[in-house]
C-alpha cells in the first residue's frame, strides 16, 4: 500500500473527474443499499411460515347458485364422501385459508366496546377439532372445542350469527396482543358488547391477507370460531393427505364432487402450495425487478469508473513512464491506481451512507418501508469497494505495462 499524499495532490489537479467518480459511487451506494433492503423485505415475505402443514393440503371449491336450503347439510354429505377417498386423512369445510386473500374479520377487545371497530382486528376461521387436524394446527394451551357445539351459518342470517359466537380459539400471537402478561385461556374477550370465552390458544397461523412488513406480529393474529357453513357461503373443502399422494387425492376428490353435483362447477381445485405461490407472485416479480435494476446500476457505475480511469491512465502515460524510469516497479504503478480508486470509493461511500439513510427516512414517511438496518451499510460499502477495484483493474494493469522508455518517447 502506498501513502496517499501524492495521490491526493494528483487528484487535486483533476477535481471534476474525481468528483464525478465520487458522485457515481455515492449515488450507486445510496440506491443499491435501499434496493437490496427492499429485495430482502420481499424475500422475507415470500419465505414467511404459514403455520399449517402446507405440503399435505389440497383445496376444492364448488360454485353454487344463490341461496340454497340445506347447504350446510350438503357440505357435510360432501365431506363424508371426500373422507372415504383413500389417502384422505381429514376433511373440513372452511370459509377462508391462510394466504387466500379472502378475509373474514372481526375486532375483539378485552372489555366491552360500542363501536365494533374498536378492538384488535383478526381474521375469523370457521371450524372445530376437524379443522385443527386438517390444517395441522396444534393446541398449545386449554382445549379444542367439543364437536357438538357447532352453529350453522347461512347467508340469510349471516351477519347476526357471525358476530354472536360465544367461544373461540385464538392464535398465540393474538393472545399475546390481547393479554401480554397472562394466559388467555378462560379469559373473556368482547366482540362489541358480546362476551366470547377463549377456550384455548393454538399455534400461529398466517392471515389470509398479510401486511407489507414481514415482521408485523399482526400477520399471525387469528380467531377460530365453531361455525359450519356450506357452498352458499363460498366455503373451501380442505383435505389433508400424505404429501406424496396429494395429487392423486385432488384428482379423485374433484371427480367425486363433480359426480355428486353434475349441475355445478368446481371453480377451484389446487394444492395449498399452488395458492401460496400465487399469493406471493407480486413480491417475487418485484424482487426480480429490483435485482435486475441493482445489477444494471452496478454495471453502469463500473462502466463509468472504467471510462474515467482509462482516460486518466492515458493522460498520465508520460508521468507513469517517468516514474518507471526513476525506478518504480510495475506493482507500484498498479497499487497507485488501486489506492487512488480506493480513496475515491471511500469518499463516495461516506457520502452515500448519508444519502442512503436520507432516502430510507423519506421512504419510511411515504411508504410502508421499515427502517434500514445499519448492517446493510457495511455490506454495501464492501460491495462498492470491490466493484471499484474490479473496474479499475483493467486500466491500472494497462498503466503498469507502460514501459519506462515512454518517459523519453513522449517528450
Amino acid at each position: 500500500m502506498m501513502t496517499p499524499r501524492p495521490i491526493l495532490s494528483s487528484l487535486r489537479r483533476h477535481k471534476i473527474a474525481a468528483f464525478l467518480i465520487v458522485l457515481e459511487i455515492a449515488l450507486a451506494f445510496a440506491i443499491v443499499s435501499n434496493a437490496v433492503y427492499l429485495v430482502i423485505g420481499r424475500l422475507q415475505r415470500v419465505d414467511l411460515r404459514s403455520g399449517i402443514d402446507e405440503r399435505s393440503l389440497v383445496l376444492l371449491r364448488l360454485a353454487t347458485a344463490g341461496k340454497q336450503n340445506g347447504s350446510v347439510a350438503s357440505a357435510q354429505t360432501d365431506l363424508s364422501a371426500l373422507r372415504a377417498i383413500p389417502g384422505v386423512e381429514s376433511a373440513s369445510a372452511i370459509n377462508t385459508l391462510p394466504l387466500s386473500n379472502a378475509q373474514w374479520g372481526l375486532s375483539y377487545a378485552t372489555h366491552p366496546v360500542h363501536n365494533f371497530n374498536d378492538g384488535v382486528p383478526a381474521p375469523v376461521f370457521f371450524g372445530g377439532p376437524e379443522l385443527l387436524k386438517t390444517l395441522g394446527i396444534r393446541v398449545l394451551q386449554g382445549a379444542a372445542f367439543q364437536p357438538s357445539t357447532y352453529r350453522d351459518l347461512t347467508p340469510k342470517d349471516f351477519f347476526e350469527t357471525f358476530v354472536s359466537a360465544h367461544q373461540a380459539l385464538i392464535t398465540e400471537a393474538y393472545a399475546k396482543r390481547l393479554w401480554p402478561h397472562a394466559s388467555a385461556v378462560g379469559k373473556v374477550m368482547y366482540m362489541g358488547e358480546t362476551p366470547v370465552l377463549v377456550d384455548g390458544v393454538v399455534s400461529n397461523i398466517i392471515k389470509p391477507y398479510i401486511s407489507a412488513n414481514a415482521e408485523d406480529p399482526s400477520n399471525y393474529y387469528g380467531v377460530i370460531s365453531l361455525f359450519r357453513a356450506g357452498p352458499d357461503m363460498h366455503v373451501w373443502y380442505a383435505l389433508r393427505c400424505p404429501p406424496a399422494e396429494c395429487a392423486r387425492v385432488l384428482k379423485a376428490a374433484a371427480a367425486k364432487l363433480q359426480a355428486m353435483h353434475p349441475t355445478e362447477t368446481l371453480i377451484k381445485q389446487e394444492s395449498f402450495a399452488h395458492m401460496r405461490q400465487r399469493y406471493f407472485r407480486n413480491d417475487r416479480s418485484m424482487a426480480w425487478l429490483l435485482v435486475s435494476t441493482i445489477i444494471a446500476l452496478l454495471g453502469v457505475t463500473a462502466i463509468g469508473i472504467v471510462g474515467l480511469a482509462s482516460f486518466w491512465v492515458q493522460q498520465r502515460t508520460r508521468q507513469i513512464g517517468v516514474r518507471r524510469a526513476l525506478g518504480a516497479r510495475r506493482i507500484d504503478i498498479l497499487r497507485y491506481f488501486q489506492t487512488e480508486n480506493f480513496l475515491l470509493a471511500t469518499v463516495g461511500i461516506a457520502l452515500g451512507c448519508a444519502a442512503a439513510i436520507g432516502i430510507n427516512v423519506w421512504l419510511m414517511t411515504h411508504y410502508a418501508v421499515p427502517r434500514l438496518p445499519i448492517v446493510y451499510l457495511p455490506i454495501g460499502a464492501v460491495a462498492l469497494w470491490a466493484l471499484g477495484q474490479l473496474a479499475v483493474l483493467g486500466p491500472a494493469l494497462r498503466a503498469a505495462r507502460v514501459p519506462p522508455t515512454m518517459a523519453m518517447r513522449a517528450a
Partner: protein
Amino acid sequence: MIAYYLRLALRALRNSPVLTALMVLALAVGIGASMTMLTVLHVLSGDPLPGRSAHLYYPQVDPRPLAHGGNGKPEPPGLLTYIDAENLLHQGKAARAAMMYQGYNVVQPPAGSVLHPFMVNSRLTGGDFFSMFEVPFRYGAPWPAADDAGAAHVAVISQRLDRKLFGGADSVGRMLNYGGHSFRIVGVLAHWRPVPRFYDLDSSRYGEVEQVFIPFNTARALDISVSGTTNCYGKPGKNLDTSPCGFIQMWVQLDSAKAAADYKRFLVNYSAQQHAAGRFQRPSNVRRDDLMQWLAYNHVVPDDVRMQAWLALGFLLVCVVNTVGLLLAKFLRRSNEIGVRRALGASRSSIFAQLLIEAGMIGAAGALLGLLLTWLGLWLVRQQPSDYASLAHLEPAMLVATLALALFASLVAGLLPAWRACLIAPALQLKSS
C-alpha cells in the same frame, strides 16, 4: 455549419467506437428503465373519465358510535349504510346519482349450452350508473328508471359475457340466469375499462368491470349477498339493510360549483338532522370528494409502482452522471485536436457548439435505443402478475416524452464536459505535443 459539426461529431464518435457504444448503452438503459416505470405510473394515475370526472362526487357521512378513548379514525368511513344511501339518494339534489355494491355469483348457462356454470362478479346499481359514467353500449340500452323503482328482473351484461354465452350476438331480450334468478337482458356493453376502476376502490382497483349489472333494488329484494367489503360498527341484525353496516358506494353528478357547494351543505344538514334524531352520535363529519380527489385520498396508485418510478429516476440520474464522466474523458482526450483547432482560429463558442452536438448525437442514439428498451420493458411489465399489467402500453405522448427526455439528458450531460473542454488553452496543448 451545423452539417459540418455533425460530420465532425460523427467522425469523432467513430474514432472511439467502444466508448461511444458504452455511452449510448448506459444512457439507453437509464432512459428505458425510467420511461417504462413512468409510463406505468402515468397509465395508473390517469383520469378514468376525462371531461366528466370534475362533475362526479363521492359523498360520505359518519354514522359510527363515539370512539372509546378517541382511537376512532377522524375521517368518515368509505362505505355507506343502506339507510344513509337511500336517504342521500332521495333527499339530495344531484343531476344523477347511483348507489352500488359488488356481488359474486353463478351464471347458469342457457339450456343446451356446452358450458358449465361459472362465477362472475356483478355490479348491483341504479340505471344512472350508465348515463353518469357514459358507459358505451353495443346493444340495447340501460334499464329505465321505472325498472329501478319497480325492482324489475332486468340485467345489462358485458361484451365478454355476451360473447361467452351468446357468441357475441345481440342478446337483448334473452334471459340470464344469475345467482339462481332469471333476468331479462336489456343491454350489452361495448368495451369499457376505466383505469383505475374508480367507482369501487374496495375491490380490484385496476381490474376489469363486472360482467353483470342488475338494478340495486332488485338485488336487495333478492338478497344478493355482498362480495366486497362489509364494515359493521355496531351489532348487525338479521337484515343487512337495517344493520349498522356500511357496504354501499355512492356517486352523484353535480354539474355546477353551486350544485357541489349545495350538496356539501346538504350532507352537513343531513348529518345534523340524523344527530338530532339520535341516529348519529358524532357531530357532523362529512366528505364530498370529486373523482380525482377521491382517487388521491385513497392512494389508488400502488406504492410499488411509485417506488419503482423513483428507483428508475435514481437510475437515470446515475446514468446521466456516468455519461458526464465518459463525455469528459472523451473530450479531454482530444485536447490536442481542440488545441489545434483553437490555434487555427476556432472560437470557444464554436468548440462548445461542436462538442454539444456530439453529446446530442449520443443522446439521439441513446433515445432510439432507449425507446426500444422502453418497449421491451413494458412488454416485461405486461408479463407480470399484477392486475394493472395488461394496461402498460406506450402512448404517443410518452413516446415523444421519451425522445425529449433522452435528448435533454444527453445535452445536460454534455454541458459540463463541453465547457471544460473549450477552456483548453491553445498554446499549452501545442507545446505539449
